[in-house]
């Protein structure tokens, strides 16, 4: 794997991620973009607010890229998360890989987002019309 692109940013530009992952040795690129959905449990979402423990979040994201690279023969990896206020339909996270074959692209890309959601210290507050909720905070 080449040096992965690991970033926490204010705004995600989805148009650049292919160029970042493009690679002559790769036959495939798989990208997942997480976006703000308009409803949670039938309740209209106004916005999401993301907060991170930035240094640790970057270090955990690097670990995930390294783990993925040890499980699958990857050429390039991008993990980029946004923080701050995000409106409905905005991108909040983008993860992607390029590799020789498509099966490993899909498996590795899914691993990146699944593991990010489990381990990276980033918190999401859902803002509804009359309340706010820290996602997953309570059982």
């Amino acid at each position, binding site marked *: 794997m080449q040096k992965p692109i690991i970033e926490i940013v204010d705004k995600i530009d989805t148009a650049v991620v292919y160029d970042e992952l493009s690679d002559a040795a790769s036959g495939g690129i798989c990208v997942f973009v997480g976006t703000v959905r308009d409803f949670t449990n039938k309740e209209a979402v106004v916005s999401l607010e993301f907060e991170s*423990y930035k240094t640790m979040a970057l270090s955990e994201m690097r670990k995930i890229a390294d783990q993925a690279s040890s499980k699958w023969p990857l050429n390039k990896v991008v993990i980029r998360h946004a923080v701050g206020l995000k409106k409905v339909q905005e991108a909040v996270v983008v993860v992607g890989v390029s590799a020789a074959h498509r099966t490993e692209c899909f498996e590795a890309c899914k691993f990146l987002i699944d593991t990010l959601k489990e381990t*990276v*210290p980033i*918190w999401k507050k859902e803002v509804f019309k009359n309340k706010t909720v*820290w996602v997953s*905070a*309570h059982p």
Partner: protein
Amino acid sequence: MEVLLFGIAKDITGKSSLDLSALKEKPNSVSELMHFMNSSYPELSKLSSLAVAVNGEYATIDVPLQSNDEIAIIPPVSGG
């Protein structure tokens, strides 16, 4: 000894960091810190989970704490 607070832990304590330097009995381990936090802020014990990071790494309860460590309370993460 400063403890960083994030997400709902920041809301519960009303602070983005806690300075424990003035405490008579400073927590010597993650376990002692968790005990102190849960008894000082009982709402923390109602969360789905609560982890502690020491110097940017998830720490098990037996990890000792030094006064110059960067310590953080990690409520349930929800990125992505």
